[in-house]
């Protein structure tokens, strides 16, 4: 069973192509009773910074039609906690771990990358240059190709870990950003982060979220995410596709569009075992079609797909 789904992403060997999306699975512990982290392709941690970040004022989430907005503001316990508590635990569980890295400036990203570089517990890094919910860092880096280039280049110099860069859909040309990220030495692309959105409470006549705007995720955004992955498939880097994936059919569509693997976020909140169900569904689908490995699906629907590495 394992072998049919076994694959790799940007040089990271994966048990299967279904990963936990950053910020929706904590550090793996929170859902451990329901989802053994070792059953996933990988756990991508909550966005983590050098020092602990407090996050944004509440309310931080609100449901929308078939989606949700979040403005967590990257609350996280910081690098030391990650290294001392979370990584050892994740390793003890046999999880493949990708650390989602955030910073307020290039130096902070670089320092995080350097600190994690030699850690065996870490299989790869995902640079979050696309969080819409923080003033400094986040989307500011991912909105312009040259800023993104400079950041990735600086980080690349300080780590040999496989480097995924997480892209924002809130740009005029995501492919252009991706190309510069590639040129700067990234090993893979994660797409997409959330779309900027907001909700207003008719009774209080105020924005619902403490931060006014938030990031839209969930099934509502799936078509946008799929289009982004489709376009990114031509860039020549492996793509980790995500955005609104709910079931194995969605996952298969992302793979066919050109994603080397997928991540599941918001669906986990509704169905904690969604990722495990997706793994099982993909397995069955491959079997039905008589395919030997999931990589045979990748890019199947997309003539512009350019296989990489």
């Amino acid at each position: 069973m394992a072998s049919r789904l076994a694959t790799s992403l940007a040089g990271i060997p994966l048990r299967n192509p279904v990963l936990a999306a950053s910020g929706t699975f904590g550090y793996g512990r929170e859902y451990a009773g329901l989802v053994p982290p070792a059953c996933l392709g990988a756990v991508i941690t909550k966005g983590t910074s050098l020092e602990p970040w407090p996050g944004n004022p509440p309310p931080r989430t609100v449901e929308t039609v078939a989606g949700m907005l979040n403005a967590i503001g990257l609350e996280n316990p910081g690098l030391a906690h990650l290294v001392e508590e979370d990584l050892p635990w994740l390793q003890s569980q046999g999880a493949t771990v990708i650390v989602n890295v955030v910073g307020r400036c290039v130096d902070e990203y670089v320092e995080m990358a350097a600190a994690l570089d030699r850690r065996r517990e870490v299989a790869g890094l995902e640079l979050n240059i696309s969080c819409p919910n923080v003033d400094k860092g986040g989307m500011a880096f991912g909105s312009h190709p040259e800023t993104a280039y400079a950041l990735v280049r600086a980080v690349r110099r300080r780590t040999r870990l496989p480097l995924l860069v997480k892209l924002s859909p809130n740009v005029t040309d995501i492919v252009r950003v991706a190309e510069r990220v590639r040129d700067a030495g990234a090993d893979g692309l994660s797409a997409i982060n959330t779309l900027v959105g907001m909700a207003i409470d008719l009774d209080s006549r105020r924005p619902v979220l403490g931060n006014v705007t938030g990031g839209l995720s969930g099934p509502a955004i799936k078509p946008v995410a799929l289009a982004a992955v489709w376009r990114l498939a031509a860039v020549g880097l492996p793509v980790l596709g995500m955005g609104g994936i709910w079931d194995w059919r969605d996952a298969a569509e992302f793979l066919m569009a050109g994603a080397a693997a997928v991540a599941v976020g918001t669906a986990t909140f509704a169905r904690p075992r969604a990722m495990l169900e997706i793994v099982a569904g993909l397995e069955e689908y491959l079997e039905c079609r008589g395919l030997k490995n999931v990589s045979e699906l990748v890019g199947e629907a997309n003539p512009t797909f350019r296989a990489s590495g």
Partner: protein
Amino acid sequence: MELVGASVLTHEALGAGYHRLVLAAPEVALQCRPGQFVHVRVSEDRYPLLRRPFSVARRGDGTITLLYRVVGKGTALLAGLRPGGCLDLLGPLGSGFELLPGRRAVLVAGGAGIAPLLFLAQLAWETGHPVRAVVGAAQAAELVGTADLGELGVPAAYATDDGSLGHHGPVTDLLEGSLAGEALYACGPPAMLRKVQTLAREQAVPGQLSLEASMACGVGACRGCACRAHGGYRMVCTDGPVFDLEEVVLDG
């Protein structure tokens, strides 16, 4: 924490939009403590998307009772559930109330806030802990759980905003007078909780508050259900929903 398909044993409309839902959920019943909640799927597909949190209002033999009010789409869907149907349920989640030894428990409930306090009353009854209750609602029809309190022998006073039953005014008016030797356990709208906080401070009695926040995961993974506390944000789903009265900073 369990993820179970609980089957509906009984489902009763209590009027004013309130419903009492009794579910067969042995694993949850076994583990849950007063103040904890279950996170419930209200649809089978992608809309409405997120689970809804509800306090456990009573524990029976392998069963739990929810007492909820229809306020929006999710609770409206819940209200359509028939006996024999199945509810996808994650729980028990969160922290619980703790009955402070040596102090009479005063349950302070506003509206649907009665739910977790009924379970606390049940525990007090089971353990012989002294307890009384003050219960408020907008109007008489919205005062629910009064029979349960009676059954558990909990002396209770009532208040309504429109004076249709009991005291005419906020339920916290019923806390006037000395609270010496007592501890407050409150759940209800923010304004009520603030008042309870103030009263407790004035009289230097301890207490616990059950807070609400909109929740995505319910298990501490998303960091979405923050509330303000001294020393930073806390998560309502895992640090709470029950907090020490002194710990949290209530807005407004």
